């Protein structure tokens, strides 16, 4: 803890050049993305396991707090991606260090240039939403915050669990604190190259994902009767669950393309992100074996939970009744006006969707 405070204050005091600020931004943007990733993977899995919760999560995403967060998220991803390319590139050719300052400025400029049209498009979704009657249904801030409490609790439990586990393993291992000789770590060698290779693979995947889910269609389009991005299907019931079902139901050449895409993204981003978290945490916990090991356990727990939860959702079929449950949840959430009719017609039109979505939503309920 003291070394974190020291590093924070001294980084502000040391007159380092732009490289120092690139490093600070890379860490902050990385941490921001990992935090959102945790929420996002868990609540997307609810589309499969708890449709009602998923509807509520998407409703929370359609509030000003998360709209601001979404703009921040996109900015974080874009900066982290461009700066990651700068890092990886110079790592392969150390002699190019003399271009690093220029590269750092180019990264900032490119981030700005990318974000202008992206933010304009994203903002147009926001404007469209607040001009539509649906904006009357926006959840109040207090309720949105209350919905996030389980996440805060979950993260707190993971942190406490990691520290306790570290304490227990520390007691079992005993006080072998004696200075051990430095020796090569094959694991760190692996992680160093993994971070660079996975980073390169993630860039096109995550840019595609952002383009589809945040820019071409925004979070507000998830609950409208439009053609679902990247598929020929229409979200008949205008529920978030059907949106997910449509995407994950698209089969091209016998392959569930978006499931494969999302799985690749999930695995690479989760491992990259949580190893990054381990880097950041272990940098500042070197003086305490308890906290250092706890950092490693926390990163491992986080990665395993997200891979298991996200993987389970991606390898499961969305149950037949999920869309109806989602419609009911929408009705309950928005007090019924207007939505009720759509819910009725939606149940009927759900059938057409079912025919278009092979092997996905048998819709036995209607």
């Amino acid at each position, binding site marked *: 803890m003291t070394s974190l405070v020291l590093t924070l204050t001294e980084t502000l005091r040391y007159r380092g050049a732009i490289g120092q600020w690139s490093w600070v931004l890379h860490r902050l943007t990385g941490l921001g993305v990992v935090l959102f990733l945790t929420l996002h993977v868990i609540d997307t899995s609810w589309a499969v396991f708890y449709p009602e919760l998923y509807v509520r999560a998407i409703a929370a995403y359609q509030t000003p707090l998360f709209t601001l967060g979404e703009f921040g998220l996109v900015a974080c991803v874009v900066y982290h991606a461009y700066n990651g390319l700068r890092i990886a590139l110079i790592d392969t050719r150390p002699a190019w*260090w003399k271009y690093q300052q220029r590269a750092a400025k180019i990264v900032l400029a490119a981030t700005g240039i990318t974000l202008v049209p992206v933010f304009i498009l994203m903002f147009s979704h926001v404007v469209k939403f607040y001009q539509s009657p649906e904006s009357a249904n926006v959840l109040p801030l207090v309720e949105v915050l209350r919905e996030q409490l389980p996440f805060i609790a979950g993260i707190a439990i993971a942190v406490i669990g990691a520290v306790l586990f570290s304490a227990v393993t520390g007691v079992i291992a005993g006080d072998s604190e004696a200075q051990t000789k430095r020796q090569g*770590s094959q694991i760190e060698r692996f992680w160093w190259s993994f971070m660079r290779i996975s980073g390169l693979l993630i860039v096109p995947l995550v840019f595609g994902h952002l383009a589809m889910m945040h820019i071409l269609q925004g979070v507000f389009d998830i609950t409208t009767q439009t053609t679902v991005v990247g598929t020929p299907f229409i979200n008949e019931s205008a529920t978030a669950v059907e949106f997910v079902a449509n995407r994950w139901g698209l089969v091209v050449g016998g392959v569930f393309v978006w499931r494969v895409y999302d799985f690749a993204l999930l695995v690479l981003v989760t491992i990259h992100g949580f190893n990054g978290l381990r880097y950041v945490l272990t940098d500042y916990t070197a003086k305490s074996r308890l906290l250092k090991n706890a950092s490693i356990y926390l990163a491992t727990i986080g990665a395993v939970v997200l891979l298991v939860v996200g993987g389970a959702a991606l390898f499961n079929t969305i149950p037949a009744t999920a869309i109806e449950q989602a419609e009911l949840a929408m009705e309950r959430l928005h007090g019924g006006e207007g939505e009720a009719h759509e819910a009725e017609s939606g149940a009927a039109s759900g059938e057409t969707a079912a025919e278009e979505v092979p092997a996905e939503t048998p819709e036995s309920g209607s």
Partner: protein
Amino acid sequence: MDLTFRIRRFNPEAPEGKRKPYWQEFTLQNVDETDRVLELLHRIKWEQDGTLTLRRACAHGICGSDAMRINGVNKLACKVLAKEVGAKVQIEPILGLPVLKDLVVDMEPFFAHYRSVMPYFINNSAEPARERFQTQHDRELYDDTTKCILCACCTTSCPSYWANGDYVGPAAIVQAHRFIFDTRDEGAKERLDVLADPDGVWRCRTVYNCTPACPRGIQVTRAIGEVKLAIMRGSPEGIIKEGVGEIATSSG
């Protein structure tokens, strides 16, 4: 011209309760713009406050004794002129090593890291009659890293080192680089193994504070990068390409 100094002081022998580090200001008159900061610190010590403690030996940028943080950046006091620092200059000890008194830090942890990379020539083959020959090209591979004077400017400019004193630090990696890329040396494998430790080169996050901090102009981050690549490939061979041959051509 007048020059105001703001100096970080610490007296370990001060009475209990007064032992905290503090800032103290001194003003010097008749400062010449070509005076070096080291000389001005001497003037303060000799003319105003004899208790001001600092370390220096050669005073000409060779011995590496007077590294300190001058206006927020690590430098050798003997290589900074008054005209470079403005009318007000702030001076504090380098960060990451225990402060003994005022601007003097305990260099032992720094030297322990230095020793850990085996900074000496290793070659167990039979000694030749005269000397071990090396081509000009091969000599240039590590020319840059021979310049290190162990002043600790780079290591104590590194946020990774501030946070974690177990990190071997830029200077030790530079010193290891000098031998790893020496074609006559046979200890590269052992050194690469030491530096592949989790607290070896992997703690370098390419922040680039070390390179501009070096008073000898060593391309520190580049050297660390080359050692990382040597670890990845298991051998230093063929890693350095750019920049080699420059000395041979420039000297004609």
